[in-house]
């Protein structure tokens, strides 16, 4: 993967394949410490202990249910390449949470990329699923929740291209302000 936001897209697709109706992204950038925490939490069908143990094995996949393939091993490799780590927590019937640590000053650390494009893609392709995007830098926070957007939209489809385009710009703008922009 070229950047972290593409990993997020791929991992969220796993969540949705596992029947999640809510996928939450939490990104916390700790500039002083030179690291970034990423959490992806879903309310999908989760994994039992056996599946959980195998989840980082690239040769393991449930294929028919399309739960896990290369996605988690690749994400782990990207985190570990920076000296960071990935934890996978899951409970059957309750959901799965991935928690990754990236050391952002490491030369092999991938850029965050374009989370707004990942969210736009996910909303466009999965209009029945809700997403939360919560991004924090020291002293600042940006949060977007599709449930709030739906409340405003009423019967207008959140996956309408005009709406998705606006959401993409909204998130892009929010991230820009986190980084001290306008």
């Amino acid at each position, binding site marked *: 993967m070229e950047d972290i936001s593409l990993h997020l897209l*791929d991992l969220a*697709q796993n969540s949705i394949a596992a029947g999640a109706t809510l996928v939450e992204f939490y990104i916390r950038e700790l500039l002083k410490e030179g690291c970034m925490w990423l959490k992806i939490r879903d309310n999908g069908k989760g994994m039992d202990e056996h599946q959980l143990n195998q989840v980082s094995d690239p040769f393991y996949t449930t294929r028919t249910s399309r739960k896990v393939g290369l*996605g988690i091993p690749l994400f782990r490799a990207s985190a570990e390449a920076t000296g960071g780590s990935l934890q996978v927590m899951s409970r059957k019937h309750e959901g799965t949470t991935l928690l990754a640590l990236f050391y952002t000053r490491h030369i092999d650390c991938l850029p965050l990329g374009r989370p707004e494009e990942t969210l736009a893609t996910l909303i*466009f*392709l999965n209009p029945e699923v809700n997403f939360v995007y919560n991004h924090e830098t020291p002293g600042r926070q940006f949060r977007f929740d599709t449930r709030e957007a739906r409340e*405003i*939209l009423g019967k207008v489809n959140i996956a309408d*291209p005009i709406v998705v385009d606006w959401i993409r710009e909204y998130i892009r703008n929010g991230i820009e302000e986190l980084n001290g922009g306008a």
Partner: protein
Amino acid sequence: MKSLKELEEIKQRTLDSVNLRKERTGGTRVVVGMATCGIAAGARPVLLAFLEEVKKRNLGDVTVSQTGCIGVCRLEPMVEVTRPGEEKVTYVKMTADKVKRVVAEHIVNGHVVTEYTIGAAE
């Protein structure tokens, strides 16, 4: 600072355009491969390029959806286009620029862009 309140305005604009395109059904289907291999190869900008074209040209009768890994990962990003009553056409190694041409020539005007198809690549 953009505000969520702007969505009210978007909602109204969307309602107007939805009314305009209500009549057309059974249109062209576009399917983008969005498995790990597709995403790593660049499926996201391809998908978003379709979104952009659909919005810009107000192609209300085009539906865009996703599929998993088709098994030819080296040819990703792959896109299948099916116009009503016609055979499915599979495009390979797609980019955002190629999408513009496929939309203009194939989806709108009915001429397959042969050089981008899986047949030309194999």
